[in-house]
């Protein structure tokens, strides 16, 4: 579902009458807000609903972004858990995007090297799949004591608690069902 709609349309689309009322009651009537504030940076932007990436309370956040930047974020007033409020981490979620520390290009560190080199995705992918295949082919156990086991114990996989469900599903599918890894673990263990 493409969220290419204005805030007003979005609320209509969501079919949430109560939600719309809540916005009006809180003084978020977008018609009058728009009339009053031509200078508001977010006035012409569509809000996109998201869920906070930090703890597991699952608070709703509205993200106001244009093509190139996240302009503003706020607690989602329609969300039944946080009802518009956010904590220190949820409030600053915009900076996860704007932080200058973000890595925006693949990087490569050669064996023994003391530095990263920026590389392109093709180079990076080629290295990754080559490593996976070489190690896997070398270590793959087809049978063990007469039992077909189809696994490798030479590659470890870690991660998942910050991924989306769809990503967890594909990761599980690729790394266990497709590549046969036995060492599959993530933050839930620790």
């Amino acid at each position, binding site marked *: 579902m493409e969220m290419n709609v204005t805030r007003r349309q979005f609320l209509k689309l969501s079919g949430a009458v109560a939600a719309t009322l809540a916005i009006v009651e809180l003084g978020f009537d977008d018609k009058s807000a728009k009339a009053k504030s031509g200078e508001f940076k977010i006035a012409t932007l569509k809000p996109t609903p998201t869920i906070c990436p930090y*703890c597991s309370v699952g608070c709703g956040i509205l993200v106001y972004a244009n093509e190139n930047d996240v302009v503003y974020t706020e607690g989602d007033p329609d969300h039944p858990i946080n009802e518009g409020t956010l904590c220190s981490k949820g409030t600053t979620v915009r900076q996860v995007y704007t932080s200058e520390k973000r890595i925006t290009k693949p990087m490569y560190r050669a064996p023994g090297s003391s530095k990263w080199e920026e590389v392109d995705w093709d180079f990076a992918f080629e290295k990754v799949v080559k490593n996976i295949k070489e190690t896997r082919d070398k270590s793959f156990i087809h049978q063990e004591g007469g039992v077909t086991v189809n696994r490798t114990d030479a590659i470890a996989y870690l991660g998942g608690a910050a991924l989306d469900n769809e990503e967890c599903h594909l990761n599980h599918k690729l790394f266990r069902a497709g590549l046969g890894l036995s060492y599959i673990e993530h933050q839930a263990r620790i």
Partner: protein
Amino acid sequence: MTNHWNDLQYADALMVIGANPAENHPISFRWISKAIEKGGKLISVDPRYTRTSQMANMYAQLRSGTDIAFIGGMINYALENNQYHNEYVANYTNASWIVEDSYSFEDGMFSGYDEKTRTYDKKKWAFKADAEGNTLKDPTLQHPNCVFQLMKKHYSRYDADTVCGVTGTDKKMYIEICKTFGATGQTGKAGTILYAMGGTQHTVGTQNIRAYAILQLILGNIGIAGGGVNALRGESNVQGSTDFGLLYHNVPGYMDVPTTAEGDLTYEGFLTRITPKAGYKINHPKFFTSMLKSFYGDNATKDNEFGYHYMPKIQAGKNYSFMRIFDAMYRKEIEGMILYGSNPVVGGPNSFKEQAAMGNLKWMVAIDLFETETSTFWQREAGADPASIQTEVIFLPACGSFEKEGTVTNSGRWMQYRWQAIKPKGESRADLEITHMLARRLQELYKNESSPAAKQMQALYWNYGEHDHPDIDLVSRDINGYDWKTKKQVKSFGDLKDDGSTTAGCWIYTGFYPENDNLSKRRDNKDTGMSNFLNWSFAWPANRRVLYNRASADLNGKAWSKERVGIEWDGLKGQWVGNDVPDFVKDKGPQDPTFADPFIMQVGGKGYLFSSGLNEGPFPEHYEPYENPMSNSFSSVQFNPAVQFGEKEMNAKGESDKYPIVATTYRLSEHWQSGVMTRNVPWLAELVNNMFIEISEELAKEKGIKEKDKVVVSTARGEIEAYAMITKRFKPYKLKDKTVHHIGMPWHFGYKGIATGATANRLTPHIGDANSTIPEYKAFLCDVRRA
């Protein structure tokens, strides 16, 4: 969570033990506050006086690692003072079941122990059955070998004096807490237990949680609004990532992985092993076969056991968990490591050793938003000599949560959609896309090969579009499952089949995408009753908001409390109705002999006060942490007899003569986990920008430490430097025969990012729980001195 966040407001008493929601789940506190406004009593049990303690009606100081003593005493108090919910205990739990005579407990040990393997023969803890296999019961709960009497006997040893001598809790306060929380055993009252890693990160972590569950069962607090055993999970989707089987021992939907055990040789044998004889899990063959169909598509047929043998089989009995990965890496058994948003150099136990083990890797792939301490473990900043580390490292930049779309599952099991607000920053990509591209490239590489390794990869059914950008809608449909022939979405997991005609990537989620609507996208925030918001997003399983909700009604199907209606039996309609999706067969009425069996997942339909599921015994028993300051007051068995030890070299142990102070770790509002995201967010980095330890005024005085002094904390694993924060939040513990100091520290810091500081996990031990192998981060011994 058995319940969910909004539900907390319905509690008469809330016991927060091993958690600190005011600081670590701040918004959840809105609902805790609401409960307090309505007269609910908040009880905070914690080694440190936290901001949750500050908001609480009662606070109990508890030495880290003594939860079972604390809760065991509460169970004892409730049984001795008739606070327990008699009708619930007699009918909804296995209190009346009679245990075999081979069960015994003496001086800290249950029957059936094998010292050599540090394991128990759990058959010794079986239930007694008649010739037909029916469990023998005594509904009067008087039989000396019935669960109720055995439980009573076991916890009679947990008197308040012994308990407080171990936990260091003030006895008057302890009794007050027992009374207050035990009062929720009255019909119509509700008490909830909230816990987090303070409960789990111990060598007895799983039994800690079981102790909470036993207390809640005897008070009749499971299945009702404002009740439950509620894990406050730490990451936005650690619920989902666990549901989807990203752990070595299970596949999506909490089913076992295939092993080399003899029974697993055939698919049929494997299914026999993982399918109990009764309870809802008898449907495992339908769920597992549908999952195999999702994995292998046309390559999963009846003739090849639905592709069962493509699945890797792990070595039976071998532990492949997190710490064991680093043990194996240390032994040079592992060549490559792939990390998706993971930073063990900060987050792993005894992390300096884990970091050193990484030097044995041939290659590492790190996928993250920011540089992590792990992806840069070879740098000089990390204390390494780059020239001597031959690991090839590839860093793939991932995008943030609102630069892509997908769902996350919160602690209350709500699967909520996140729409994309902006395209990924720079050249970063969604993890979904990265995995998809890896899979496509690997399948291409293996295309023309015929080795067994190639065949496994070729068999994989990867149907998410013929482009590098995967179609997420196809992934969603794959998770839900569909009819293989018609490709029509399956409506519920009840429709799944074991003949290969249906698929389901993760059966517990089946039903979130029936036909054409992805229900995780729902945004109708009208309260449908008891704040369950049934039309907001989707909750697994089956959009059910409170698990075991059959237990919210009495034996006749009437709600225990008119103020807390979960579901009720409507005789006229002939079905269960109410404020939630029934956790029960919808039209199962009073004439059915299993009408009063609310725990449908369990064999026998009852809540298990006595269970042979865990490795160290059917009842939680107190043992001291791996590193501890005193001898065990409850028996001569000092340490959990079922804990397995890992690589010795990774696991130095400290003794109390050299390291007399108890230490624990915790989190802060301003930072998150290993700090990768928050220490790179300028405002958060500014809010808390240094590593510190909290120490009591008394300890500071003893050690000549002043506020903001640089101090060194040392353990058997290593030393770190941090600032001292002198506080009244920690007090010396008056234990049975001595006074012990206790300190605490956050574990968010490392050497990368805007805010940097020493890593607490350089101090923590590399030892884990006897069931889950979660590391014992929360209780270890240290010493402190001025730098």
